[in-house]
């Protein structure tokens, strides 16, 4: 279902450096996940038909919105508490171009 090259590309998109062994491992795992979802393809659905199409249900809800009312935020100290590195109230991150 999925090739090694594609796994390498996904790794690049996720900014992860994968070893050859890891690529093989993820190739097997991702293929098995995709195969599992392919089961759904066996359903014969006419997506344009009212009776056989299935509307995405999400949580079975629609139109959930909130009023535009601001509420107190976290303090700067709280916001930065889990950050491995900070500087002058900022999160510090590697430079990415």
């Amino acid at each position, binding site marked *: 279902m999925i090739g090694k090259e594609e796994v390498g*590309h996904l790794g690049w*998109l*996720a*900014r992860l450096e994968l070893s050859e062994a890891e690529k093989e491992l993820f190739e097997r795992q991702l293929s098995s996940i995709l195969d599992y979802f392919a089961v759904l393809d066996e359903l014969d659905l006419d997506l344009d038909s009212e009776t056989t199409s299935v509307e*995405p249900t*999400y*949580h079975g*809800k*629609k*139109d*959930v*919105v*909130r*009023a*535009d*009312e*601001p*509420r107190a*935020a*976290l*303090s*700067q100290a709280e*916001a*930065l508490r*889990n950050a491995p590195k900070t*500087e*002058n*109230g*900022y*999160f*510090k*991150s*590697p*430079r*990415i*171009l």
Partner: protein
Amino acid sequence: MKSEDRSGEVKIGLECHAQLLTRSKLFCPCSTDYQNSEPNTHVCPTCLGLPGALPVVNEQAIKYGVKVALALGCEVQPVTTFYRKNYFYPDLPRGFQITQYDFPIALNGLVKIENKKVRIRRVHLEEDPGRLVYKGTIETAKYSLVDYNRSGIPLVEIVTEPDLRSPKEARVFLGKLRSVLGYLGVFDSDLEGALRVDANVSVAGGERAEVKNISSYKGVERALSFEITRQRNLLRRGLGVVQETRHYDEARGITVSMRTKEFEHDYRYFPEPDLVPIRISGLVAGLRAEIPELPDEKKKRFVSQYSVTQEHANSLTFDKSVADFYEEVVSKMPKTEAVAGSSAAVAGSSAAWVATWVADVLKGELNYRGISMREASKLISAGDFVTVLKLLKEGVVTERGATEILREMLDRGGKPKEIVKKKGLASLGSAETEKAVFEVLGEEQNAGAVADYKLGKKEALNFLVGQVLKKTRGRAEPKKINELLKLELQKK
């Protein structure tokens, strides 16, 4: 060149992102009032992307999005949904941006600029990412600092079809967009960085490049001109233009390749499972009724109701606060009196005369100082402006004096009549003007100009008028000076 020869034809499509003026963020209740705040003080688990935090859509942002769509002549869709756009960048704490993909708020709009129609492909909502700060320049910094105060600010994205044919058209389009968004009251056009643009640009014969990071309305023309020249040069040298993403470096006025290989399918868009579909067709009728008179309609009305020129109508209606100020001044001006001032414009109707003072004089002074009408209206009320115009009409001050009053009010504040007294701006009576004219004509240094005039050099008169104005510090009427000078010179 044959008419069907399309070589060199430029196609530009824009993706415009405007910050919406909601009070709270798009998916969390953090305040949007983050300008000039300490970093990371307007954040919560949702806009920091902490595990377990769930987004809920701000109803006002949806309404603003629908309003924008309606004002741009779009078809509002019955149901709208949100998607995740996956990419890794430090300004995006979750690793994805919540945006819209299939089922945007609206499709297929149309905006008229000058003599052309620009098709709008779609209008959708998305969240603004955080802000990256670099020590030194983006190229030399060793790391980046991240402030998530902006993370989650609602943006409305407006995507055009590639209907624009020049950088100038792109600027005119953006001006129009900025104007309409301002009229709707959903956008603060005075705010730096509130409108950001990505542009797709191609020259016939080459691929298109996407130019990102055009962060100022004024930068658009420059960024696009650079990019078109770059593409044309490549084609001229027989080198192809490759499809790529380029970054606009505003400081240097150039575009730089971002060397990324990410394509649309790499974003792996999929429906945001934490947000539910929102039915929006029910909002349309109510929101349509809330849309105010837009710039084009107002322009037409100003021309017919106030007999202002097309040019003045354009200038007065670009910014709603200018248009409102103008109408307030006109409504407060005494109706029946004939204008008794001295300028040629006075011959027109009073409302057209006021237009000159708002569109040319006041706006000129604002542009010179780089301040907006909204800021200026705190310094000069419509009532004050009417007082200044009345002083001018009554002959208490000259045109130059009236301009001086406005300048003083903008720079140091104060009320018109006080300023006239304080700065001695009251115009001179005819006896004093005559005295100044005699003095100037009698002065040794002006003898040359007098002789020139007698020899038929009419320009010499302007010089002499200038000398009298200088002597009287602008408090004498130029027309009066002119008449007196001509009279006296004939006697010589």
